[in-house]
């Protein structure tokens, strides 16, 4: 069952003269957890709001569950859960009041027990008003409100921003719990790469409004590598290898970041450049992301000088 539940075609959004989202093409199949990764201001929230019909695209289109985003029908919205940026809820309402409010919109889908279990687990008093809750507690309420209707498609906009590790873990548990049910799909934006690595099937990397990567997590992790080339004599100024992303020179070594190239081709290229040794090093997802989205001639913030 590879039905596409979320797709965008050349989705573009200009804010005045600023390009926030640039011709985004996305296809998310049913049943997958997709991690939307990008630096702050990369366009993640804008993209999500476009998908949910809260913003109007300058060009291109977006469809959720087969329905155009600018015309999402109430019936379709009922199948989509949304955790908003910042977990902003009605400040004057109590948790119990919000439960009643939210529940009214999902008469057949609402899982009373699930909501009650979550609120109990989070140790949240039902009578407390939202304005008296901490950021973390508000996030927990937000999560419970989004999961209790058992949505087919759950979209979460940076749900763990500024939250502690325990709450981040609770959100991941919630996602996994949802995904183990038949036919559910999750899209969440995050910049905690560790979380993305734990739960995502797919990763979409956004940088300055452009999708730079859109593949399975495994492919991404396999594709980006670091190779340390050691030289006996002088280190060459230029090196030509396919897929070279960055090159960092030090006295006796070249540190290369490469994308999408086999290990053999790397060693070949290293040999032809005159390298004595070529070590291909595993990178963790966070380092891969940083290297992948760094500008072409980036350097470290602090350069350590040999004295």
């Amino acid at each position, binding site marked *: 069952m590879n039905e596409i539940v979320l797709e965008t075609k050349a989705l573009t959004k200009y804010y005045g003269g600023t390009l926030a989202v640039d011709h985004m093409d996305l296809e998310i199949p049913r049943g997958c957890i997709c991690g939307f990764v990008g630096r702050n201001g990369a366009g993640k929230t804008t993209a999500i709001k476009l998908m949910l019909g809260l913003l109007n695209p300058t060009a291109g289109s977006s469809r959720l569950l087969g329905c155009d985003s600018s015309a999402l029908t109430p019936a379709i919205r009922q199948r989509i859960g949304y955790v908003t940026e910042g977990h902003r809820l009605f400040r004057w309402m109590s948790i119990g009041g919000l439960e009643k409010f939210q529940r009214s919109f999902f008469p057949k889908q609402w899982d009373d027990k699930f909501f009650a279990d979550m609120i109990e687990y989070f140790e949240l008093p039902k009578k407390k008003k939202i304005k008296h809750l901490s950021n973390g507690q508000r996030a927990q309420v937000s999560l419970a409100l989004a999961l209790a209707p058992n949505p087919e498609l759950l979209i979460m906009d940076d749900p763990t921003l500024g939250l502690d590790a325990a709450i981040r873990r609770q959100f991941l548990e919630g996602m996994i719990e949802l995904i*183990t049910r038949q036919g559910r799909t999750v899209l969440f934006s995050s910049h905690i790469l560790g*979380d993305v690595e*734990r*739960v995502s099937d797919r990763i979409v990397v956004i940088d300055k409004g452009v999708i730079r990567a859109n593949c399975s997590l*495994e492919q991404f992790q396999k594709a980006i590598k670091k190779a340390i080339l050691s030289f006996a004599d002088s280190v060459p100024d230029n090196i030509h290898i396919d897929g070279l992303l960055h090159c960092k020179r030090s006295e006796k070594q070249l540190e290369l970041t490469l994308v999408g190239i086999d290990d053999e081709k790397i060693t070949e290229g290293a040999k032809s450049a005159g390298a004595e040794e070529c070590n291909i090093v*595993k990178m963790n997802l966070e380092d891969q992301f940083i290297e992948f989205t760094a500008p072409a001639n980036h350097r470290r913030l602090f350069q350590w000088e040999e004295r």
Partner: protein
Amino acid sequence: MPLWIQILPGSGEPIYVQVAEQISKAIARGELASGDKLPAVRKLASELVINPNTVARAYSRLEQAGLVTTKTGSGTFVSDPKLRRTDAADINILTERMDTLITRGLNLGLKAQDLISLFESRLAKFGNKSKKREEEK
């Protein structure tokens, strides 16, 4: 059945490999005996807070290595060691790795006897339950 798996995201090792390796170790140590049932994919995913597909991939990696077999409808079980295929290719890889170890050891200045003692002490850590299984045969 106490199966303790630790996930380290950010270690550079894909998570499914970590899961597979740790289950593999548990089998080698005898913590998981042949015929034991591995946790259901969804259950393990829920406990470890990782994607069920990752668990599925780990199980399928183990199945390819011949360590487990999946019976549709029932689950995934640790395979009978007698029925595990020992591929010539697997033995070759094992031999290569041993050569690497021996080379390292000798380069460090260890003598052959030291290497053997070291090997035996490490094997003992995996040992007790394996030995029992050996005796039962």
